[in-house]
């Protein structure tokens, strides 16, 4: 059981790296070639890592202080002038505190604002319930005109930032505090249109994104030991979603497990259930937060507590296969 190894990785930060490093560095690089890129902050430069951007482009770095509604509004105004603002604050604040500004000032106006929710999900760790975003994906997914992307490693995060800088229209990027530096092999390249099938399999399908994809990749070996031939799909783009890939999995494997560090209501679990129930008959089991707030605890404890663990994925897989057999 590799959970001990996982615990060490997270606590020692050897494999996991602060997303701020990539966010700040990549945006600074992109801004060298693109004079329209702006960074908008709300007193969280330490969390987003844009101090280097501020030093390189002081007239394109705006800091509004602890005022998330104004953060989003100012970004909307910059976009109204055809600039490309990246507005970042903690995922809970950008999706909840500034929800109406995101809805009206950004989504309704279809302004080209890149909303970045940093320290997303359980990666807030000991900051606990007040800071752990459990509904940012659900909220953003509901908004017309909004694209929603949930990357799982630093290489993918960099690709998504590059994509966002070139794409037009409102976009939400869910960025945890830490992500593995490199989760996928070199053949993988982020695609806005397609989900990524990490492993072919026919017994059931596991779908994940964000920090949870790290756990589901780890679960594959354990599932093999249990003679479960699992298909594994990494789904970074939650909206617009690769419906074909999900339906193909539903048809070919008949059982799907979703894994997310977010509420299953309206998150990845909700999304997959909606698509499957409208089109095909397949079992869906949803792993994630069920009517609960996050905890004051480290990431490893929280992942295990909410069942985002190799053990729980294996257990859920066994259960869903029994249900599938009986239907």
């Amino acid at each position, binding site marked *: 059981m590799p959970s001990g190894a996982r615990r060490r990785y997270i606590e020692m930060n050897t494999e996991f790296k602060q997303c701020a490093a990539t966010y700040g560095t990549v945006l600074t690089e992109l801004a060298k070639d693109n004079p329209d890129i*702006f960074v908008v902050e709300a007193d969280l430069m330490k969390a987003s890592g844009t101090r280097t951007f501020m030093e390189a482009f002081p007239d394109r770095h*705006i800091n509004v202080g602890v005022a998330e509604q*104004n953060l989003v509004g*100012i970004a*909307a*105004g910059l976009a109204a002038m055809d600039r490309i603002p990246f507005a970042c604050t903690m995922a809970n604040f950008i999706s909840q505190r500034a929800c109406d500004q995101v809805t*009206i000032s950004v989504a309704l*106006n279809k302004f080209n604002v890149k909303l970045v929710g940093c320290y997303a999900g359980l990666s807030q760790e000991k900051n606990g319930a007040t800071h752990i975003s459990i509904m940012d994906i659900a909220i953003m997914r509901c908004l017309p005109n909004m694209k929603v992307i949930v990357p799982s490693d630093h290489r993918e995060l960099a690709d998504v930032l590059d994509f966002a800088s070139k794409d037009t229209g409102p976009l939400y990027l869910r960025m945890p505090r830490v992500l593995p530096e490199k989760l996928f092999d070199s053949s993988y390249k982020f695609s806005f249109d397609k989900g990524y099938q990490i492993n072919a399999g026919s017994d059931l399908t596991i779908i994940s994104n964000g920090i949870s994809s790290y756990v589901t990749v780890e679960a594959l070996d354990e599932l093999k030991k249990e003679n479960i031939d699992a298909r594994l799909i990494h789904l970074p783009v939650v909206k617009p979603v690769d419906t074909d890939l999900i339906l193909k999995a539903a048809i070919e494997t008949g059982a799907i497990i979703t894994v997310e560090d977010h509420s299953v209501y309206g998150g990845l679990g909700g999304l997959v259930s909606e698509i499957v129930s409208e089109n095909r008959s397949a079992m869906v089991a949803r792993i994630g937060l069920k009517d609960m707030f996050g905890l004051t605890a480290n990431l490893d404890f929280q992942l295990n507590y909410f069942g985002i663990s190799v053990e729980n994925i294996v257990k859920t897989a066994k259960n869903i296969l029994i249900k599938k057999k009986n239907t």
Partner: protein
Amino acid sequence: MEDKITELKNTARQLRINTLKAITNAGGGHYGGSLSTIEILTVLYFDVMKVSPKKPDDYDRDRLVLSKGHAGPVLYTALAMRGYFPLSDLKDLDKPLSNFPKHVDRLKLKGIDVSTGALGQGLSIACGMAISLKQQKKGNFVYVVLGDGELNSGQIWEAAMAASKYGLDNIIAIVDRNKLQIDGLTEDIMPLEPLKDKWAAFGWDVSEADGHDVASLRDAIYAAQKSNGKPSVIIVKTIKGCGISFMEGKCQWHSGNIDENQYKKCLQELGDGI
């Protein structure tokens, strides 16, 4: 100068008549707050703002954020009278799927810079626009029309601080100070006074004007354009429902509808057809 003032007065009178007709044709709406902004939008669109209906997307234009989005019918009517589209299009106000929803939608109509309607959000957007203009060293202005009721909203003051921090002297905010909000007098619901002192304390250049006197408004806006290093706010004294005797100063006319007789009386009072 006298000619210009006379011309603006006539334009305002016509804008008031056309707006009233458009709202009434739509089956009623926000008469009160629309009629209080007539002279403000007249002076902006027919005198001070650098905009052209021939080039509505011209990057080097002034911008308007109608933060009190419920005064949309006035903006639509002003744009029509300015030549952006035929006045007859206003028959579509509030009609399903039309380009003239109750609250302005920039995606539906050339000439609308920002879709608004949820109060309290316009000043932040104006700040973003003004920051961009300054960063590009462009001399255009961003005008923001704020309702006084929406000054209850915290976001306005977040934006007020930011405008001051970034020295956005290219923002001119105009507060439609009609002293009424939906539930009653602003000073009863959530007192704003001393309003001048509040803005001044937030680092703004503050002036006052008579919101129904085009000359007074004009002078105040031209003076505000000369502000150096500080954003400007003009608190303009207005009358909610201005021009219609039975609506003036009554908060129940924030939104409503009128019957045939009332409509005739309105047109008579406004001198329509004279």
